[in-house]
């Protein structure tokens, strides 16, 4: 067919813009002259105490206006007893604006406290702290300690897991599929775990107005799509670069796991920061065992690489670092500047990364011949992977 009736460029742009202009007019009308139309109900103010730090003779609270209207913070109390306090920079909070409330108070370590803030309409908001613990200061000792913990939790277990590579290389195709499926099971568990953690954090510490569930879902999907797109490019270009296809896939998995371990580092750092040392010891041992399986996940696709194990060693170390070292950065951030919002975001990014890796591995198995993903090795691999993860997670 001959396309003689070609639309002009100007018309095309206009047709794209006109609906947009109407949208702007609609929005402008509702906010401007038509605002009375929607003057229904009573907007309820809301503030959220996002962070409570116990420093020398002082309790510091980071408060955010998470309601639909501006508020004034006018009073602070501890355990429902009014205390003189200071608010910096000032007591007027616009939507989503934050301020630091400083309450001079001789607090006692390990005791529970309820921090209360009252706003101008007399509404009191409170936040319960289970046990007061001095806020961590990022000195060299602690930075080093977190680095050691991160290495112990992230890098070493992943490296140990990678040591299974020679073993996986020597087995038959169906057993190899089993190991790939095992990886899928492990990752599926980790992805769900990350989402659950993100939902818990958003439920406990994030204001309702952030829509914690939708934030988690949105970031997970965006992370998935972003990495999927980038990963596909990486694999397509693997012929051009010196990376072989299996290594490109292993790299994808390592990046996904690295993002996930960043989230784990956050959890550990935050646990140490909140003073629950006994809890974080279990957390560290649990994560270490748990993360050994992540090494297997990276080793799975690598076994298809034709190069000798010896020449792979450098790449293996690189992959182990990519997957493991983010735990160190996570621990630093979680310990020194914890924020529920960034935690949720990072956990969701990790989840998206992991789901993306699962898709890549599934495609790999299908390309190898198991079109329906229904062979005994695949089904049993996924099941055992999830079971192993569940059992090791009990240790956390």
């Amino acid at each position, binding site marked *: 067919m001959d396309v003689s009736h070609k639309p002009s460029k100007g018309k095309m742009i206009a047709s794209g813009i006109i609906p947009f202009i109407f949208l702007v007019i609609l929005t402008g009308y509702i906010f401007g002259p038509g605002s009375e139309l929607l003057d229904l109900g009573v907007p309820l103010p809301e503030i959220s105490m996002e962070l409570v730090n116990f420093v020398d003779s002082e309790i510091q609270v980071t408060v955010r206006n998470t309601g639909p209207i501006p508020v004034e913070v006018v*009073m602070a109390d501890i355990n429902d007893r009014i205390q*003189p306090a*200071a608010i910096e920079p000032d007591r007027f909070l616009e939507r989503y604006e934050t301020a630091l409330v400083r309450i001079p108070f001789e607090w006692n370590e390990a005791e529970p406290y309820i921090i209360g803030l009252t706003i101008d309409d007399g*509404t009191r908001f409170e936040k319960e702290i289970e046990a007061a613990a001095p806020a961590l200061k990022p000195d060299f000792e602690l930075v080093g300690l977190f680095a050691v913990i991160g290495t112990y939790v992230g890098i070493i277990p992943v490296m140990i897991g990678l040591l299974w590579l020679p073993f996986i290389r020597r087995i038959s195709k169906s057993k190899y599929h089993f190991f790939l499926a095992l990886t899928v099971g492990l990752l599926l568990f980790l992805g769900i775990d990350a989402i659950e953690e993100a939902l818990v954090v958003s439920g406990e510490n994030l204001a309702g107005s952030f829509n914690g569930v939708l934030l988690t879902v949105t970031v997970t999907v*965006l992370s998935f799509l972003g990495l999927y797109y980038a990963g596909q490019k990486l694999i397509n270009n693997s012929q051009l670069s010196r990376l072989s296809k299996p290594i490109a896939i292993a790299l994808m998995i390592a990046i996904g796991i690295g993002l996930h371990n960043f989230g784990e580092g956050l959890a550990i750092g935050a646990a140490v920061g909140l003073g629950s040392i006994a809890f974080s010891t279990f957390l560290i041992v649990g994560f270490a065992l748990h993360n050994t399986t992540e090494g297997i996940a990276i080793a799975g696709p690598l076994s298809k690489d034709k190069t000798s194990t010896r020449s792979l060693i450098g790449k293996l170390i690189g992959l182990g670092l990519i997957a493991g070292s983010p735990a160190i950065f996570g621990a630093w951030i979680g310990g020194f500047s914890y924020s529920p919002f960034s935690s949720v975001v990072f956990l969701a990014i990790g989840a998206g990364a992991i789901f993306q890796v699962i898709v890549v591995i599934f495609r790999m198995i299908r390309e190898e011949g198991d079109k329906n993903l229904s062979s005994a090795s695949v089904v049993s691999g996924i099941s055992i992977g999830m079971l192993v993860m569940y059992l090791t997670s009990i240790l956390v």
Partner: protein
Amino acid sequence: MTKSRSSVMIMAISVFFVISITYFVFAGDISAQSEEKSFVTHTGGVIMTSGEVLDPLYTSATMDFDPMEYLRTFDYGEVSTLPDGTTLREYTIVAEDDKMMEVSPGVFYNVWTYNGSVPGPTIRATEGDIIRINFINDGSKEHTIHFHGIHPSEMDGVFEPVGRNGGQFTYEFEAGPVGVHPYHCHIMPLEEHIVHGLYGVFIVDPKEGRASADEMVMVLNGFDTDFDTENNFYAANTIPFYYQHHPIQINAEELIRIYVVNMVEFDPINNFHLHGNLYKYYPTGTDIVPSFYTDMITLSQTERGIMEFEYQYPGNYLFHAHKVEFSEKGWIGIFQVHENKEQKIEEVEYGR
């Protein structure tokens, strides 16, 4: 061509994404440094801040209710004599329920008022006087005045709701018995009408009078500003911490008489502790012989009485609820005792 466009799109989306996240995560850290201010903590420490001070004790609010004026103001009404020689005291009391009052610095609460204040005017008469109250309800809800004391059923302010927006009723009864009594609105839901502030004090003096004294009235009350059936503030005479910030000036060697009425709701009890002294206590003020000599009494809802004491030594003395939760939420004050010019304290001899 299309390929590069889509990657530009994706780049743009991810840049936007990262920037918006950074804003939320780090917005709290962006704070301007300004001039340092200092404030004093409850334990006496001085703290410097670049921001604002949040403290109901040391910051002054623009108050439309003056606890110092209320403290020593007694309303004897418009006095006339009836043909039989009885004294008639006439009052006009207007109820309103739309006023927003700053009950503590920065905290605004919808108070319901008799004659524009919480508590309402302190009505004072002598036993046997006729009290006539022209009650006008300018509120948006029904209100009444229910007096504690002895009076006919139809003057009880319970079964005769006075209509909104200008309804009127005249309460008339003989003042009695001798003592200190509360009055309050008695419309259901009763708790709501009381906690919003529709109450006041009614004092009936004995015919023979009481010894002359520096007299004051203290209504122990509280405000539940967030409607969770727990008081956010407590006070003697409405404004939390007021008499701590503005000590009540009294003289040593001078009789002080306080008419105390407990109007705190939600909490079953309240109490009154005096420092550096003990007081004679007359429950309900109905007897002229004190029942206790103590520095601590416990008061249930609308329980009240008269306290009499004299300070021997000048200086500052706290008085507060010994239920410390109440005192730390505002029910605390100071008597600043001055040397009595007429009776020098030096004359007192020790160790005899």
